[in-house]
């Protein structure tokens, strides 16, 4: 049983590198200010512990081609890997304490060592780090020894509990808002869970997951056995309840969180539009921000009294049809030059378009029209709704619902099928009589329309339009959220926007590492679950059919999202 030991040590090494990264990038320091359990454990010091547990769990698992390991060797491997993590972090703490590296690594401050040592000083602290790594690694490996359902309940409820602690600003605010201060006081204290709150959340979630694992199949079978009309009625009721909650949401969550919900809504709109271009038609557009910018600028030009040359001062709603027209026009302008480019070339050229748009809006040359770097001020409110986050929520919600319905219907229509065929294989689609030029332009035009409406609301929501709000990161943001949620799926867009836009807005600690986390999300999703969290059914089938094939060429042909070089199709 010696072969898995080097593997365990290797896993430990990678875990240690992850620990170094998390520490030096500043995440540990930042989350030191947040408590997991009030006044006992901070989230910052839990992070290295989590890494040790994960590493132990990974090291304790046996690769498929080896016979199952004995109990003691599983624990041993976990402990070995955890110890490696502990050693590496202890080394980091020692280094940080003895050498001044802050001129290179801004986070390598003595404070970091303090956190890693659990504020026990170098001597005892090192023992704690290494011993803790050993124990936690063994504990992580120990999860394999428990029955699978129990292990899963424990692991998931552990994660949920940490999320519950992180979400204190959100859950606490909601509880205060709906006058449930007693519960809030019971669960939370000074920005973290209380001891009793921690135990309660952990036990409840674990029991819930355990119960679902035991009984869930029976419940699903009962639903499946229901007659179709009753199932439909059930679905309708579910939709009605959801709609009711959506309508009351600003009142439930209160003023500050409505702001966040509004931002999420704007990104849902943006994601739905990008989803048409990328998810349905398979055209990877990295310059989607151009549409968003055009929407915001057109709105500002048409409505704002501060617009430099041209100010008809239309009301917001009268300007909106022109915004959509401008969008369709700009969609065609961007779409036409890239019609013949496939795949990665298209991505880079559209990225170029996005940057061109921003640079032009920002330049002194365009200043007479767009206000240059100062932007356009005093964009009016979308009356009768005001800029108040609890009020502007409703038009945004309305357009999100319209867009979601439109996207669903489009996907199921002839157009949607044509896009589907085009995404799968452009040449075959063309051979079967699909006019790819038309459908590509349609995808760009519709995507642009959604993006422009989103931009219009962005402009009216914050009341000013600056060129620097429209950088490449907006495109990346929208792309990351549809990939996380699942390309081609509307529910996926909503989930993606909630996780990638909502969470960072809520957790100011995250805001700084938001793009770092996006990067990790994009890479990890592509490596582990390219279909996203909530994939559309056909997309999941496609990608899994693909991953069964071994032959490279067959792979590319079947997935066929696009072919290689810049092919001119005429």
């Amino acid at each position, binding site marked *: 049983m010696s072969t898995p030991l080097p593997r365990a040590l290797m896993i430990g090494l990678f875990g240690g590198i992850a620990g170094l990264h998390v520490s030096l990038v500043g995440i540990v320091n930042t989350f030191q200010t947040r408590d997991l359990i009030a006044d006992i454990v901070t989230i910052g010091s839990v992070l290295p512990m989590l890494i040790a547990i994960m590493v132990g769990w990974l090291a304790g698992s046996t690769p498929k081609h080896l016979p199952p390991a004995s109990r003691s060797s599983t624990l041993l491997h976990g402990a070995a890997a955890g110890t490696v993590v502990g050693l590496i972090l202890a080394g980091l703490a020692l280094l940080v304490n003895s050498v001044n590296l802050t001129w290179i690594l801004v986070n390598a401050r003595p404070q970091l060592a303090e956190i890693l040592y659990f504020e026990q000083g170098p001597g005892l602290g090192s023992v704690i780090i290494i011993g803790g790594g050993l124990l936690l690694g063994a504990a992580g490996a120990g999860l394999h020894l428990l029955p699978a359902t129990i292990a899963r309940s424990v692991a998931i409820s552990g994660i949920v509990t940490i999320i519950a602690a992180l979400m204190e600003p959100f859950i606490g605010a909601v509880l205060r808002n709906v006058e449930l201060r007693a519960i809030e006081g019971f669960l939370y204290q000074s920005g973290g869970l209380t001891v009793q709150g921690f135990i309660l959340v952990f036990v409840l979630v674990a029991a819930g997951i355990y119960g679902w694992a035991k009984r869930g199949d029976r419940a699903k079978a009962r639903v499946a056995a229901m007659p179709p009309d009753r199932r439909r009625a059930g679905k309708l009721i579910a939709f009605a309840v959801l709609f009711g909650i959506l309508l009351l949401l600003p009142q439930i969550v209160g003023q500050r969180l409505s702001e966040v919900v509004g931002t999420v809504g704007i990104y849902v709109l943006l994601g739905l539009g990008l989803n048409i271009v990328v998810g349905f038609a398979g055209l990877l557009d990295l310059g989607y921000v151009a549409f968003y910018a055009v929407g915001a600028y057109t709105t500002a030009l048409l409505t704002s009294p501060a617009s430099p040359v041209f100010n008809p001062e239309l009301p917001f709603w009268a300007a909106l049809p022109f915004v959509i027209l401008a969008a369709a026009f700009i969609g065609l302008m961007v779409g036409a030059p890239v019609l013949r480019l496939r795949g990665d070339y298209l991505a880079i050229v559209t990225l170029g378009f996005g940057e061109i748009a921003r640079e032009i809006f920002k330049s002194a*040359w365009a200043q007479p029209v767009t206000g240059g770097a100062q932007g356009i001020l005093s964009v009016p409110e979308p009356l009768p709704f005001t800029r108040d986050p609890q009020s502007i929520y409703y038009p945004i919600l309305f357009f999100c619902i319209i867009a979601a319905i439109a996207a669903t219907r489009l996907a199921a229509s002839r157009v949607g099928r044509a896009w589907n065929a085009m995404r799968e294989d452009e040449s075959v689609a063309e051979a079967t009589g699909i006019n790819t030029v038309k459908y590509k332009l349609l995808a760009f035009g519709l995507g642009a329309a959604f993006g422009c409406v989103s931009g219009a609301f962005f402009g009216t929501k914050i009341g000013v339009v600056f060129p620097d709000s429209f950088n490449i990161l907006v495109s990346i943001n929208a792309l990351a959220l549809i990939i996380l949620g699942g390309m081609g799926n509307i529910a996926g867009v909503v989930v993606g926007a909630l996780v990638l836009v909502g969470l960072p807005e809520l957790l100011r600690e995250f805001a700084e590492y938001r793009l770092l986390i996006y*990067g990790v999300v*994009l890479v990890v999703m592509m490596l582990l679950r390219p279909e996203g969290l909530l994939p559309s059914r056909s997309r999941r089938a496609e990608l899994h059919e693909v991953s069964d094939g071994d032959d490279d060429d067959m792979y590319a042909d079947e997935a066929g999202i696009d072919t290689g070089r810049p092919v001119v199709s005429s």
Partner: protein
Amino acid sequence: MRGRRIRFNLVNLFLWLLGGGLLAFAGFGSFLTLAEGRIQPSQWQSLVIAGIALGSVYALIALGYTLVYGILFMINFAHGEVFMWGAFTAFFAATALNDAGMMVSNPVLAFFLVLATSMLVSMLVALMLERVAYRPLRGAPRLVPLITAIGASLFLQYTARGFYGSGVRAYPDYTLFDGTISIGFLSLSVKQAVVILSAVGLMLALYVFINRTRTGRAMRAVSEDKDVAAMMGINVDRIIVTTFAIGGLLAGAAGILYTLIFNQVLFFMGFLPGIKAFTAAVLGGIGNVIGAALGGLILGVVEQLGPNLFLSGYGVPSPNQLKDVIAFSVLVLVLIFRPSGLLGRKENT
């Protein structure tokens, strides 16, 4: 069938109008600028030389794109970040050597030390990138590695931000490279000369490596046909790793040369040079090594000269703000009119 032809013609017509319009705009602008004699001859000359210096940096980065594309048919979107890591490493190495007094006592050795460390670190970053983000996805649908590359690019960028801070850091000055040289009627700063000479030297070394060594021959074979190369006993995986390593080395060198010109480092600095170098690679014909060098030089000169030449004739205020717009327009125009690039193989079109 007839309707189809007309539609295609409409698209073509639109593209020709767009491209022709842009070219005419640039041409007429140049005519106006030259006719009005807005800029002194010495200014033209210094702009061209600055363009060549910048272009040789682009060329070094573009080589990384082109080599990887030639072998994997994949755009290594994160290559700009490899360059940025090289620049940061060069910054820290130079600062350390400066504090140790070596920049004064032995400046030539110090320069080569800095160059070596930054090339090494960039190479390591490129290798890690290949191992973690690209190798597991080899053979996956094309968009998948591209999205991973975007993710990896964000990760590298914001890791640098977390590690090194979000501010601009000013570079220590190499007193060795102060002053100017005059060759006949040409005069250029020593820094520019160093940048151009180093870039040319590295490109020559690469050319010899690809054309004269065994590994180079294997690289060419793999880029012709991976499967056949594998059958001939070439270790394709090793060649791919070598390619990424070379791309990384060149990007690291580009990192220090770029900081020589601009004298500062920032975590976001890899983005624009990365895209522009990609433009250069496409301009020269992606997959073509000489093309990448040529494309880099042309793009550098166009970027430096373009705003003043094309735009100032129209009386555009501060035309240099629009230099990125010109660079990206070049990309769009090339892809419309000659997607295989200047030196690209014809069968690519």
